[in-house]
Structures are given as structure tokens and as C-alpha cells.
């Protein structure tokens, strides 16, 4: 099982996300993460999807995706030339015993403390998903109250773009 990050350019129209996710259910694809956003061209949105599976799953995923009429382009991002980022907000217990560990970890991971009160601290962290995973591991014993992650957004290096690529 490998992980694939797939970028999809879709029409920026109501209901398009539902068409895409309905296909996932219908074809039983398991999605690890999904993000949607507008792009520089207001006609399109970009969906970044992370899936786990084998080569065949990936190929099926791409061809099923291409069959949807609002999907304009589908690209499996090449790991070697792709920058991946994810944002996480995490709320942890703030107590005199845990505080130094949280602060130290936040500093080393270049996380930002975005909220602070006597009993709660909220931390913002951006980076590769593995970095976020590692940070969660450290926070776990310290008492995570709540957390959320955006899912991966990814972009390839170089001058090529989704729109100008064939």
C-alpha cells in the first residue's frame, strides 16, 4: 500500500464536490484527506486528494475521476518534485507541569502558540504531514483536548502548472 497525492482541477460550480465524493462512495475508494480551494482562475477549483492503495487503485481512481464531466484535469503528483504542506490546530492542557514541554516542542517544531489561557494552550503548526504526526506524538501524553488538520495541499516545483499542462 502506498499513498498517492492527486491534484484535480474542477469547474468552480455548486455541487461539484458532491459529484466527486459521490464517485468515491460508489467505487469504494478510501480517502485519507481532501482539500478544496479556489485558484488563480475563478472558473476552476483545485481539489487535492490523498489516497492509499496499490497502482491499480490509483489508475482506477484517475480514470474514474476523468469520467466526471466537471473534472477538467487529474494529475498524480510526483513525490520527488512535489511540495506538500498541511496545517494543524491543536489544543492541549496547559498546566505548570506540562507547560515547559509544550513550549519546548513548539519552539523546536516552529509551531505558533495562537491562544493561551491558564488551563489551555492552542498551537498552530504547518509542515509535511509526517512532521505533524510527530508533533501529535509528543503532545499525546501531555493531554490533547481537541485538534484538527486541513489535509494535504501540494504543488509541483517548476514552471509547469495544472492549467497549461496537457
Amino acid at each position: 500500500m502506498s499513498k498517492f497525492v492527486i491534484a484535480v482541477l474542477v469547474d468552480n460550480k455548486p455541487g461539484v464536490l458532491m459529484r466527486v465524493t459521490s464517485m468515491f462512495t460508489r467505487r469504494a475508494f478510501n480517502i485519507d484527506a481532501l482539500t478544496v480551494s479556489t485558484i488563480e482562475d475563478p472558473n476552476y477549483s483545485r481539489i487535492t486528494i490523498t489516497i492509499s492503495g496499490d497502482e491499480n487503485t490509483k489508475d482506477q481512481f484517475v480514470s474514474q475521476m476523468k469520467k466526471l464531466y466537471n473534472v477538467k484535469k487529474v494529475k498524480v503528483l510526483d513525490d520527488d518534485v512535489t511540495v506538500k504542506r498541511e496545517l494543524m490546530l491543536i489544543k492541549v492542557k496547559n498546566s505548570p507541569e506540562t507547560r515547559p514541554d509544550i513550549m519546548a516542542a513548539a519552539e523546536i517544531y516552529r509551531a505558533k502558540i495562537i491562544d493561551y489561557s491558564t488551563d489551555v494552550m492552542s498551537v498552530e503548526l504547518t509542515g509535511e504531514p509526517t512532521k505533524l504526526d510527530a508533533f501529535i506524538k509528543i503532545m499525546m501524553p501531555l493531554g490533547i483536548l481537541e485538534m484538527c488538520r486541513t489535509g494535504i495541499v501540494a504543488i509541483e516545483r517548476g514552471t509547469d502548472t495544472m492549467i497549461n499542462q496537457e
Partner: protein
Amino acid sequence: MKLTGSQIVIETLIEQGVTDVFGYPGGQVLNIYDELYKAQDRINHVLTAHEQGASHAADGYARSTGKVGVVIATSGPGATNLVTGIATAMLDSVPMVAITGNVPNALIGRDSFQEIDITGITLPITKHNYFVSDVNELAETIREAFKIAKSGRPGPVLIDIPKDVQIASAEYEKAEVVKAFTDKKAKDKCIEQAAALINESKRPYIYIGGGVLGRDIAPDVMTFAEKIGGYIGCTFMGLSAFPSDHERFLGMQGMHGHYASSMANKEADLVIGIGVRFSDRATGNTAKYVKNTQFIQLDVDSSELGKNIKVDVGVHGDLKDSLERICALVKKDERPGWKEIVESLQAEEKAIAQKAEEATAVPLTPKQVMDIINDIKLDSTVVATDVGQHQMWAAQYLKFRKNRTFISSGGLGTMGYGLGAAIGAAVGSKERAILVTGDGSFGMNLNELATAVSYNLPVTIVLLNNGVLGMVRQWQTLFYGERYSNTVLGRKTDFMKLADAFGAKGYRVATPEAFRAAFSEASESEGTCLIEVLIDKDEFVLPMLPPGGSIDDIIVAKERGE
């Protein structure tokens, strides 16, 4: 010119070459029906008894003519009644445009009377669908729907039009009939790889499906088969795509397929699938199916390549073009060794059939019924079926010489499909259509008898009545210890009175002679006829590959009990 939304609907349909539509009026399509009334000399509307019947009729019309079938229904229950018909069309890749009305935009989302989110409901069972919120986009949306429905691998498209959009006005300008998207041409590399595999092969088996039927390329398949000394079998959906009595044709393969074709598939060292999806009903257990065989798959839909089984060469592109190019590259080879093997398989099949026939004690067998239909029906006659044993008997024994003359719900297996489909076929072909059905399936949508009779449509209904749900019962006999849970109907329906009540001519027969006489008479009569054929409840559909089994587990003969 300025037209209202409902006028635009009708004008765009006519502009797109639509001559017949099927449907049922209701509150939210009143405006469209008002325009249909005014345009009745330019477009024919067939009113069915139920929206489901209308959806199957549009499907049958599309399958028998190759044109896009059109169905119209109102919002809410009208729209949900189309769902089974749309799903049936989706699973069998039938081009269809379904038009539904909806409550006005201002009432959407308020659980208004007969409001339903039909685009949401039909999302996974349409190729695409639309909710038209602006009358200015209406004409273009309808054109796009036709384009999508008939392009590539065809399928159903639904357009939901709220009532205020039907009432509002917009500029309309007549446009050309939309053309399907041009299909991609396969890559040279794939064509070369396919040809190389074929040249190496000693026993090539050509396996054709609905794609060959839709693209109508039997002559190309024939040339190809003759050049490489290959033999041809088909899927259920491929029936009538290739002439049944051609010497290289071995018939349908799979769960209830012909012995010779299923065995030839097993014996082959190379299977060349053309427009097939290697469905579970055709392959049985895929792990055993792929053993020691190489596969080439040609399809216009890239997602089919390797979807169900791993293929050695996938050729994505227009089937006709791919086949022609492969055919040009392969060496001519008669492969006499393969011919010998296939001929012995055919002989075995014959022997099995003969044995079965000798063992028959009942007065009228399904095979005899199909043989008599073969004797009398014309090459151009369309045969529709429902789903169950009768469907498989029709698939096994009926002979076809013309493309699109067999229409049946293959993918979804919709009981109740047949009568609507036969009505659609009769309207489309303007000829007598035959429905082969069973008492179970017929019971599901027999209300459409009213439609057939009212329009005086030439439909001959051959109703194989065994008083049980035969196919399920067969499974119960074989795999559920003869516990006949809810498959013995024991109904008191008098089909002769029923035919009479609906205004159809009824016949009840129990012998081959009586069936022949009734069927001949029906074939030469004017309107709708129902022939009830009494058959034995213990008739089996054979051969049978048990579910999850392989060709090695084939059941060819029934142990006839007391």
C-alpha cells in the same frame, strides 16, 4: 426569438432530432405538457401507466434504434419513479435524457409539495445531471445533455427544471444536432503490443460485449476472427451484436452461457475482450478465470481496462479504429489446432443438449418455445425480456441476425423492465416487438399493458408461467436445500381475464403446437397479444456456473428427481 422555458425544452428536443418521447404529466411539468400539446404534430408523446414504465420505454426505444431515448416526469414521486429506469440504463450504457420538473426556485429546500432533490438522488446512476436554475442556460444544457448521453460510452443524463424556469423567457436560436465527442484513437504502442500477443497466440478467443453492439462493428470482428482463426463468444450485453448462426460464433458465455463458449474461453491462451467489462456473471471466480491465460482488452472507456481483471494489454480508444489497426498488423493464420479443439467443444455441447432433450418429459419446454419464436420472428424483430429464467432461456436459444434486436436488463437485472422496453422498441422500430417474460417479472409492471393496448402497439407478450420465481427457486433447489422461501407464488391471477380486461388478445397454451399456432396468429395480428405459456416449475436454466465458481464447476445436467 424569445421563448418560454417550456417552449425551449420542446424546440430543443425537436432540434436535436427527437421524434418520440415517453412520460407522464404532473404539477411541475404542466407547462412542458402544454407545449407538447401545441407541438403534437411535430413530436409524439407516449403516455405510460407509470413513470417507471416510461423510463424503460425510453430505454427500449434507445436500445432498439440507437437514438437517445427521452423521458419526461414531474417532480417528487414522478422523478423518483424514474430512478430504477435510469439505473438500468446506466448499468447497460444506454443513451437517455430524463427531464424532470421541480418546484419553483423560490420553494426549493422547503420540503414543498412534491419537492425532491432528484439530481442528488440520481448522482451515482447518471453519467451527468443538471439542475437548471436559469432559463438562459436551458437550451445549451439540453444540448450538452444529448452530447454527453451519446458520447463515448453512452449513458443516461438527467435535467431537472424548476417550474419558474419553465415559465421564464429567454432568447432561443435553433442549433444543429449535437455530435458525440470524437473518441480517442488508441496509442500505436498498445496496438503493436496487442498484435504481437495475437501473433504469438495459438488459441485466440474473441470475447465481445455491449461495446461491439453499440459501435455496430460485427463485420470488423468477423474479418478479424477469420484472419486470426479466432472464435467468438459474447457477453449477455453483446447478444445480437453478432449473427448467432455464424460458424465462428459460440454464443454467450458465463453463468448461464453456452458450454462451448465458456469452455473455449477456458481453453484459450489469449482472450481478446472487445467492449466488455469482464463482469462477475461472465467470468465467475476471477482468480480461477485468469489462470494461464493472457488478456487483451479494447474499450472506449479507460476505466474499464483492468477494472475487474488484470489485463496484459489495454487498448483505450474507439473500438472500430483499434480493431482495424490491430487487424492490419496481425499475421493471417488459420490455427487449425484451435479449430479442432473448438469443434470438439461444439460436439460436446451438442451431445449435452441432446441428452437434455431426451430426458425431457414435460409437454412444452422453454427451448421449444424459443425455437418456435426463432422459426417465426423476422430478422428485424426486436425481442425484449424481463429478468429471470425466461431471460436466460431467451439469451441461450434465440437466434439473432441483426444488431440491436435483443434488449434486456443485463447489468442491473431489473425485473419489470421488459414490457416498458418492448413498448419503446415497438414505437422506435415501428414493427412488432416481442416480449419474453415470466409470471414474476410481468407482475411487477403489467400495468403497461394499458399503454400498449391504448396505442394499439404491436407487441406480442410471451409469458412463461411456471407459478414460481423460477431463478431464485433454482438457487434454492441447488444451494438452499430446497427451502422454497417465498418463491412459490400460488397466485390466483387469470391472465386470460387480465388480457381481456386491458383489451389485449389472450392465448393460453400448453403444447408446442398450440404455442406455434398462437404465436403465428399474434405475429400477423394488429395490436397487443398476450400468450400465456404453461411450463413446468422445475425447469432449470442450464448450464450453470455456481456463484463464485469457475468453469470447472459447470453444472450441465439436472438430476431429475421423482
